[in-house]
């Protein structure tokens, strides 16, 4: 059916007309009304010519955000690939991870506002362990017994779990006391790190920069503008490097390890996987644990990069990541990365050049358009590689 439709000779005049006219109409409408939402091509081109360094800067910012979104999106997409369930609790697991990362880094910081890089790297361990365990528990005690029910039941249960975890996060938000071992004074003093108000944003200690000064001067840019400096922070480098390591490790794991192959087998045919002697329940649980651990890694990246968290942070970041997964083709790991890069770049470019108030609208307009013209997502298709 689809093949027949894609052959132009089989289409009626009206169908052919519509096929050409629809995209033109959409481009026209976007240009017409886009101005209201900050899309002014003339001004944007002028701004880019005036200061080309800014666009490079925004691309770096966009890629760093994409790195965080990718890691969370992979958690959504892996779980979907194996049990065809959207884990709505995933964003709250991520939010809990930011608190674990904050606590860990604060314990090492002991009140200082800047910590060395190794502290941020160390924070990956507790955050990933905690989130992996939490997501594994959610699978075991929420989703497992619902696996044979209608899909909507698991979905609603996931939403309920999400709210529950969000409120626990709100509670964690006003705990906020860690022991501060003051070696000079007698005894132990307590340090408030999370703030008095449970819902208010909490600040992360910053990560020490590699280089002192305002940024890394790059000679090439001096040809364009003598004053231009490109600022690449330690957080940029850490976030992008972590994402690359995570993506390659996960890909290697899924292709080469015994458990990874079992995950692919369960994703492709759970009944046959059981007949091969694969413990399907254990593999599904492992998938949630790995997805959770990824959310934990993303939580550290998010904290280091954005320097703040709150119990609300899961919903916006989670929504962006979920959108990235859908945009790329849910169930497809490479698709998640592609969707994330797209959203990250579009957001940072829109924030700078279009209108930051309308960024979310632009992101979702793109999603709607992709869904209309390619409902399976950018890389999603029957032949695509799942988990």
């Amino acid at each position, binding site marked *: 059916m689809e093949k027949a439709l894609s052959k132009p000779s089989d289409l009626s005049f009206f169908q052919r007309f519509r096929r050409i006219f629809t995209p033109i109409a959409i481009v026209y409408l976007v240009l017409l009304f886009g101005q209201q939402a900050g899309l002014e091509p003339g001004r944007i081109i002028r701004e880019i010519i005036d200061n080309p360094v800014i666009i490079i800067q925004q691309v770096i910012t966009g890629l760093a955000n994409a790195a965080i979104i990718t890691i969370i999106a992979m958690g959504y997409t892996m779980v979907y690939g194996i049990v065809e369930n959207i884990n709505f609790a995933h964003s709250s697991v991520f939010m809990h991870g930011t608190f674990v990362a904050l606590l860990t880094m604060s314990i090492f910081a002991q009140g200082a506002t800047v910590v060395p890089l190794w502290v941020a790297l160390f924070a990956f361990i507790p955050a990933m362990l905690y989130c992996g365990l939490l997501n594994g528990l959610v699978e075991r005690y929420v989703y497992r017994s619902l696996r044979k029910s209608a899909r909507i039941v698991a979905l609603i249960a996931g939403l309920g779990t999400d709210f529950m975890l969000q409120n626990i996060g709100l509670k964690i938000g006003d705990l906020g006391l860690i022991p501060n071992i003051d070696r000079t004074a007698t005894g132990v003093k307590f340090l408030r790190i999370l703030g008095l108000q449970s819902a208010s944003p909490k600040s992360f200690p910053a990560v020490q920069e590699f280089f002192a000064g305002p940024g890394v001067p790059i000679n090439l840019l001096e040809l364009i503008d003598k004053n231009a400096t490109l600022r690449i922070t330690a957080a940029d480098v850490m976030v992008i490097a972590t994402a690359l390591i995570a993506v390659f490790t996960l890909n290697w794991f899924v292709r080469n390890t015994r458990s990874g192959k079992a995950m692919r087998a369960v994703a492709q045919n759970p009944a046959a996987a059981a*007949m091969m*002697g*694969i413990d399907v329940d254990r593999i599904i649980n492992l998938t949630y644990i790995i997805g959770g651990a990824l959310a934990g890694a993303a939580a550290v990246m998010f904290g280091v990069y954005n320097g703040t968290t709150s119990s609300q942070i899961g919903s916006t970041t989670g929504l962006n990541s979920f959108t990235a997964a859908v945009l790329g083709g849910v169930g497809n790991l490479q698709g998640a990365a592609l969707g994330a890069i797209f959203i990250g770049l579009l957001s940072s470019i829109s924030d700078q050049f279009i209108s930051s108030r309308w960024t979310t609208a632009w992101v979702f307009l793109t999603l709607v358009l992709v869904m209309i013209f390619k409902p399976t997502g950018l890389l999603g298709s029957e032949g695509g590689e799942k988990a």
Partner: protein
Amino acid sequence: MSILELNNVHTFYGNIHALKGITINVNEGEIVTLIGSNGAGKTTTLRTIQGLLKPREGSIKLKGEEISKIPAHEVVKRGVSQSPEGRLTFPRMTVKENLEMGAFQRSDKEGIAADMEKVFGLFPRLKERISQRAGTMSGGEQQMLAMGRALMANPKVLLLDEPSMGLAPILVDLIFDIIRELHRQKTTILLVEQNARLALGVADRGYVLETGEIVLKGDAKDLLTSPEVKAAYLGERGH
């Protein structure tokens, strides 16, 4: 010697009483076939043996050991593997990866490599397609792959569910030649088939299943000539 024994096995799908006290035994090196029409409970029997369905009553013994209470992945380890109805190959894995999945519960590298060569000996076509994705192969090739994959578990009992289903006659002949070859190599097989004539042709003994109950059993030769079987399953009256 009896290698697989089902004694008074009752299996339910929810409230549906699918198997109503089945008693079957399979001896070492034998091909035993289970014939019957659609919905008689043939696939249910295999799924129950495999541990994918739990019997509510009765016992299933493999070499004298009870296996009806252990999980499916353990049953494979004990030596029961199957080529399922509809083949169920892993579509986005290559032929080689599919075969490796068949040996999932094994850790003897040399044994696995030797068995893979054996499978390629039985199905040279699979060797030609070693790096092709299973989902892109023909039905006959996928059937060969499903059987090869089940053999990779080095089973004590091989369960074959409808190996002829949906295949062209020439491929059906090929698959049944392989089943005869496996028989010569002393593989113990429990074969489920709708094509009763073909199944009874290769089997030593047979059971006839009707709505969850064994209604007839005996030597395959005798069943082939029995008037009830002839009338109901060999199409010598009516269709």
